[in-house]
């Protein structure tokens, strides 16, 4: 165990140097491809906001089901199936048909190709809709995979919109990730006030232009209270133009009265639609509806054919800016709600770094002093191995560009305390063997050999616990699992190779002397 070939020694220290050299870039400003990596500081250390958003897809499910109504009725008529008692609720489209038509209905309902009602989802090998027939009644509902498909599409689309909105706000290095089936994790380093971001993300920003009318029409009307004048208006449900046709929106001051307004530009299709509608309805009022709120309802004075328009509505410049931002970045498919929020101010982060560093240094010194007092020259070996352990730990964290959190620092300190265990196990074993064996070399040899199994067993158990913590932990706690796990691995390396080699050097140079550990 104590014999090291030259190649072995060289490779041990090369590995050590190679790994630990990466830790340097955290302390000095170094250039070059090798040193462009750094340990990331977690939000709890650098300050910032962690927001977990949930996509509420239940309204989408209802909408989706509703969108099936007209094509379904049409298809039923085309197929000459008589239906009765047609109704839609949150979960079902319900109607009754004659028993003889059931086969026919099932045939077109479960047709795989060109089925524009019940779409076949190849990804899941399943249909979007299912039906059950109870007596004469048919209940059509979204299948499990249909809901899943709808949800994941909504989440993907929401992530895209969230990213656009956050980019527009101009936050540094935001991280936006999908979490589970219906959540989005947003991390915003350095942000002090997440309130504005939350406000902006909380709005779906569904914009529609619709005519103000008292005439009953085929789409129906609904009533709104105008936000600017508190006037009650009746608005047609027919949508002339929606936010989807917008290509740009900017805040501006109105030339006439110096009030903040939002100027928008439309795409080609939007311009055509808007031009037609405004030409036909000069003198009427057009309502601008955002997220079920009527912002304003100006009178159409001229036909607007150039594809540009303005929205006014008692804005402050800030609200006009936010509205323009929301319109530019597009509408969310469904509202997002913040289900978890953690914000740390930059000064608390700095305090935490300071406290973490001080307790690391103190803990480290305490352990080093203790080991030196207890084991004398072998204590120094243990300490050298501890230092190399820490350098490698930092090196690996840097290589992986891992995120260091406050609990992560605690993990490093704990590693300091527990890493010497390997050395202690070895030294204590050697001490025992020295009492039994004649030669120093033999005692050291056996001591290492016998303790290594124990060291492996002991460290693997802790490693198992910290890997499980890594899988299940969230946020800063995950950082603890990262440093502890890597720390255990570097501990094994430094104990098995570095302290063993350093010990062998001492032992070979002092073959005759009695060792007192």
């Amino acid at each position, binding site marked *: 165990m104590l014999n090291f070939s030259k190649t072995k020694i060289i490779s041990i220290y090369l590995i050590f140097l190679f790994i630990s050299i990466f830790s340097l870039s955290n302390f000095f400003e170094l250039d070059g491809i090798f040193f462009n990596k750094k340990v990331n500081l977690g939000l709890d250390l650098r300050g910032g906001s962690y927001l977990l958003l949930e996509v509420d897809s239940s309204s989408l499910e209802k909408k989706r089901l509703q969108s099936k109504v007209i094509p379904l009725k049409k298809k039923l008529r085309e197929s000459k199936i008589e239906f009765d008692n047609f109704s839609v609720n949150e979960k079902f489209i319900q109607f009754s048909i004659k028993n003889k038509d059931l086969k026919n209905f099932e045939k077109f309902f479960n047709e795989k190709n060109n089925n524009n009602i019940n779409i076949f989802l190849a990804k899941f090998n399943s249909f979007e809709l299912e039906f059950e027939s109870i007596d004469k009644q048919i209940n059509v509902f979204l299948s499990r995979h249909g809901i899943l498909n709808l949800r994941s599409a909504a989440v993907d689309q929401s992530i895209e919109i969230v990213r656009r909105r956050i980019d527009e706000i101009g936050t540094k290095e935001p991280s936006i990730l999908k979490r589970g089936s219906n959540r989005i994790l947003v991390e915003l380093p350095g942000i002090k006030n997440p309130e504005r971001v939350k406000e902006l993300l909380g709005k779906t920003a569904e914009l529609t232009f619709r005519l103000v009318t008292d005439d009953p029409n085929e789409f129906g009307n609904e009533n709104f209270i105008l936000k600017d004048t508190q006037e009650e208006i009746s608005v047609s449900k027919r949508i002339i133009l929606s936010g989807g046709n917008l290509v740009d929106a900017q805040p501006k001051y109105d030339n006439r009265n110096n009030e903040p307004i939002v100027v928008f530009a439309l795409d080609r299709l939007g311009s055509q639609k808007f031009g037609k509608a405004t030409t036909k309805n000069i003198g009427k009022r057009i309502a601008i509806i955002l997220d079920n709120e009527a912002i304003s309802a100006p009178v159409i004075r001229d036909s607007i054919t150039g594809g540009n328009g303005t929205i006014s509505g008692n804005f402050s410049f800030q609200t006009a800016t936010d509205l323009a931002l929301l319109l530019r970045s597009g509408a969310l498919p469904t509202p997002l709600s913040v*289900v978890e929020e953690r914000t*740390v101010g930059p*000064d608390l982060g700095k305090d935490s770094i300071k406290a973490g560093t001080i307790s690391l240094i103190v803990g480290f010194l305490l352990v080093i002093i203790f080991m030196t007092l207890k084991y004398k020259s072998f204590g120094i070996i243990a300490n050298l191995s501890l230092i190399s352990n820490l350098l490698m730990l930092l090196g690996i964290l840097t290589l992986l560009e891992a995120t260091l959190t*406050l609990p992560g620092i*605690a993990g490093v300190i704990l590693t300091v305390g527990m890493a010497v265990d390997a050395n202690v196990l070895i030294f204590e074993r050697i001490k025992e063997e020295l009492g039994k064996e004649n030669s120093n070399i033999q005692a050291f040899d056996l001591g290492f050999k016998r303790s290594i199994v124990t060291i492996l067993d002991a460290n693997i158990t802790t490693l198992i616990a910290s890997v499980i*913590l890594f899988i299940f932990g969230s946020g800063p706690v995950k950082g603890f699992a990262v440093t502890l796990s890597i720390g255990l691995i570097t501990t094994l390396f430094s104990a098995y190779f570095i302290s063993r080699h350093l010990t062998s050097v001492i032992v070979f140079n002092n073959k005759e002397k009695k060792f007192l550990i």
Partner: protein
Amino acid sequence: MKHVPNYNFVGNFKISNLSSLFLVLVSLILIFFKGLNFGIDFKGGTLIELRVDSKIVGIADIRSSFSNINLGDLNVKQFGKEGDYLIKFEKKNFDDKNNIKTIKENVKNKLQTDVNFRRVENVGPKVSAELLNSGLLAITLALGAMLFYIWVRFEWQFSVGSILAIFHDVLITIGLFSFLSLEINLSIVAAVLTIVGYSMNDTVVIYDRIRENLSKFSSSKIEEITNTSINETLSRTIITSLTTLLALISIFVLGGEILRGFALAMIIGVIIGTYSSIFVASPILKYLNVSYKTIAKDQENN
């Protein structure tokens, strides 16, 4: 030159086991009847850490500045330095997106001074329930994994012994948290998992020695072997616990308010874990009739 201590541990097993049993029972009673002081991570709610000028604002002012908004059960306490306060409440109307903004503005207006909001955490009821479940699942899985590892590396009797020791450590640590009404949050779960790892680590070292001695002194009784093994590994057990405690005490004293609960849980866990590997895990081998035969089968197979 070599000095192996020779304390009579086995002779004290009866007393120690009775007191362990007593402590575990008391802990269980505390956990079930007094309950645990769950933080917002597991209960849901809002936490605000703020800093004000302690010369102008006192704790009563902080409390009254929150009182005009109905936030339910409000908990205000000093947090670390003077002028630092931690405010916790279980908010019911979680849907209000501007709640925190409203609260912040309200507090600033009422206190009429600059308020530094150092930390704001808000956990919804759904997420907190999930965090609690995943925490419990993680601990259960960790225990299962340990059981399996020891069963593979040793014999089933050793698995039983080490798992009972871990249960002992975790229950007493949590029981103490219940007794002292200390907050249980995500970092405590991390601490408990680390305690599980540490306690296991400590037990494995003694078990390794017991197994080695069982094959070396095959005719000796398990009591003798256990006693010798504990004594032989005693100085390692103590030194490692000491260095780990040194590191933890450093976190506890200097690591700041946020890490304090974690460090305390770990300190308690390390002390109990060290105790249990000697006084809980080892006697169980005797109760399960472990002898040379138990490990002999395994060695033939190897």
